[in-house]
């Protein structure tokens, strides 16, 4: 079971969390002015990389807060976690845990 560092609570076991898919997908400011293709991209298209992936997680059996994480999809290693609204850190920097 993974240990995940909630930015607000510290390290907690994986079972306390829920993953909410890819992070940094901005909801268009004015959806009605967004083209069908762009809206479909926002709704359905995701990157699914092999390697470091920015994800949304929520500490739903803890503080209940959403945050972002960089996770390596190959090793399952959490590179770092960071607060919602802050930009994606450089991959590999600010390592939470080896």
């Amino acid at each position, binding site marked *: 079971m993974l240990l995940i560092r909630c930015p607000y609570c510290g390290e907690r076991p994986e079972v306390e969390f829920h993953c909410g898919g890819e992070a940094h997908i901005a909801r268009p400011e004015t959806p009605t002015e967004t083209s*069908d293709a762009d809206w479909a991209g926002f709704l359905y298209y995701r990157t699914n990389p092999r390697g470091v992936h920015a994800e*949304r997680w929520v500490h739903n059996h803890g503080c209940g807060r959403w945050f972002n994480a960089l996770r390596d999809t190959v090793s399952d290693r959490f590179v770092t976690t960071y607060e919602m609204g802050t930009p994606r850190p450089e991959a590999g920097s600010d390592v939470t845990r080896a």
Partner: protein
Amino acid sequence: MNQPFRLAAGGRVDRSRPLTVTFNGRKLSGYRGDTIASMLLASGSHLAGRSFKYHRPRGILSHGSDEPSALLSVDWRADRGPGYRDPNNRATVVEAREGLVAKTQNHWPSLETDVGAVNDLLSPIFVAGFYYKTFMWPRKFWDKVYEPVIRRAAGLGEAPEVPDSDRYANRHAHCDVLVVGAGPAGLSAALAASADGSKRVILADEGFELGGSLLNDATSTIEGKPAMAWVEETLAALDARENVVVLPRTTVFGYYNHNHVAMVERVADHRDAAPESLARERLWQVRAGEVILAAGSHERPLVFENNDRPGIMLADSVRAFINRYAVLPGKEIVVATSGASAYRAALDAKAAGMGVTLVDIRLEQDCGAELADARAAGITVKTGHTVIKSLGTKRVTGLVVAPLGNGGQIGDKTTLACDCVGMSGGWTPSVHLFSQSRGKLAFDAELDAFLPGQSAQAERSAGACHGVYDLAAVIADGAKAGGGSVTVEATPSYTGFQPVRVLPTDADPSRVKAFIDFQNDVTAKDIKLAVREGFQSIEHVKRYTTTGMATDQGKTSNMNALGLVAGTLGRELPAVGTTTFRPPYTPVTFGALVGPARDDLFDPVRKTAIDPWAEKNGAVFEPVGLWRRARYFPKDGEDMRAAVARETKAVRTSVGIFDASTLGKIEIVGPDAAEFMNRIYTNAWTKLKPGRCRYGLMLREDGFVYDDGVVARLAEDRFHVTTTTGGAPRVLAHMEDYLQTEWPDLDVFLTSITEQWAVIALQGPNARKLLEPFVTDVDFSDDVFPHMSVTSGFVCGVPCRLFRVSFTGEQGFEINVPADYAESVWKTLYEAGQKYDIVPYGTETMHVLRCEVGFIIVGQETDGTATPDDLGLSGLVSKVKPDFVGKRSLTRPDMVASGRKQLVGLLTKNSDEVLDEGAQIVDDPAQPIPMKMLGHVTSSYASSNCGRSIAMAMLADGRSRIGETVWVTTPQGFTEATISNAVFYDVKGETADA
């Protein structure tokens, strides 16, 4: 008590504590400190089971958890009744206790006479891949012939017939260092790691005595003292340290992410007087800063014809039985080996009084100091010899050996009479846990073994599992892994060996059974056949032959199998690769994994405050989400249809009472509450006045209906939202997600109030008359408190939120009271309702009533692909709001295209016929298959109020087809139905929409 093969003195058994166990109905005698295996050997017998496929008699191969052959069904507490037996216990690790009842497995009618042994003679049909080859055709043979055969043969032992009667515990723990294995490496590691008193150390070992390989060693010394004296001193030092927890009888079986390690501790099985309240086993989940693996190694069997006969065991196991248990495994032993370590076994057997001959595959010049030591002790050593085969069936009676010439030719054969063979094909480091940790294995050609290579986690290996075999080096390696440094003087170990795969023989290899995997009955010939048939990857050979796939996970067999595949392919061993080791290291009981989460605690049932009343009053319940809800309240002899007909009638003619407490309820509070509601729901909320309610519809961002429910505005900045029963948690999560991640600027708080407010629904023309006398501080007049409004007050003196709403089409009230008061309010209203013939009704009646008036249920009419328009609910979608969740998706091309399924009613031609929910709808039942399916039935009931059956359906372009006829599938074929509006009952009173 008869223990003819027990030595008069010595060993680690406690002779002051004699005991007996029952083995296949007869008594075995022994002592505390014995295993069932050592007691069986003390009685003079090796016969401990029949093999899986060929039903060959099998003995005891090893002395530890790697035992593949001696598997027992053990009843641990036969005196307490059934439910304490489990199969596949390895006789070599079952700690003997007075009263254990053990049985061997895989034979009928008895161990000595097994009818299935005929399989041994039919063995040509049981070759590699026989399941795949034999059971493919003819197809009709499957049910009658193959399946019963496979079912009888598949799996080892017999599953228990009754539920496990034992209790199991679990525990979570944290430590800085977890040491796995308490042999010389592990003890040394734990001592070093715990020197810093601030470090929490856990030392776990699967054995009931700690010391690992040193328990079997009567001759080695450490610092001039017997090795076990060093063990005892080290354990005493660890015991004296408060930062150390020592756990015997605790198997580390799983190594997961981030040093999350699972172990099972056997708590009660060995105790004579264990209170029934004591858990049998405890599952430990440990999060360790570092893990030190000191798991030792497994000895490899030699591969020769009939190497599985009872009496043939691993050489180091011979040593274990003699030194630790003071039991002779026979009178005349041949020790056959390709390495030095087995010489210790030969020397110990000789010292214990056995007749000993040593057969070494190695040439004279390849042997070390061990050769001279053996000869000096008077042991005949035949170097440069191979083993052709063993003699005997239920017990080995001799070993046929022959010298190997320079070109590998077989010389003159000699038969060595014996009743015991100790064999050694070298050692395999136990890298199971390292491999589970996702570490990379590296092949060491000199040791002919895979060793831990690159680590994936904070872990280190030490001792034999690290490829270090010499005793002094093992202790140094352990200390180093523990962060220390130590140098000890110890007896040099006999190390060094020459890898052999299958021993050279002049016999026709296709006629020889030389076993690689004893538990799954896989022979060398099977593996060669698999390779000949084109299997090259070890993962494929493994699955095709089933080698290494039994409950022992091939601990004794993996390297022989790998080596044989590599040799047959003419490749280097690492090129063939190794199989993946997976948890559990040894079999774990389901009880330990499940722990207390069984029976009522497996999936706890949510019950409402009114549930006890419903149970007392004969409700039939149904599960809804995690809740159990009253479905209907049958009166004597009524079936569901009759009860529901009576309940639905009563609601429309007088009054019914319904427990709606499971409705999800969320309070949305804050200065921006209305703005938040505008963004989350399709409806417009700004103009809704405090004290008024509105039916709200919620979409996902993709435009499909997500949930619905009545929303009350309690104040400018406060909404009381209701959700479907099953939807409450995900709706709250959905709202929280948007609030936190998309609109963090909104000043709003969301609180679940589902559990806090119980809801009593009164529905029917007499609802107001019944309720009004019990309510204070509320004006019931229609202009002050009309349909779709909410107010606060007191009911029966209890504070309440009173909703005037209806999910039945009748005049209705939903009385929200604090859950603790709900049952008493319910009882008061029910008593008072007797003068109106009040009827309690359940979810089935509620479903029928709402369907009669055309209300949908999200999750029943919708399946995650329905838009508001599909459901005929476009009137609830605000045209003026610039944005809300899902709005943009509603104009995507496919969402507005024709041909979408739309909500309609269906009226069967035969008004008594009730359609199946989920039934498909077609235009022409005579069309060829596959038919064009136009939609499906979503709800269907017999309606006493309508005097006929009614159904809702989602049908392609359904709203433009009203009045037309379609055909609906039935179990018998098709039935005709007319498309109608999805409203079936004309209510004169209240209406649903605000």
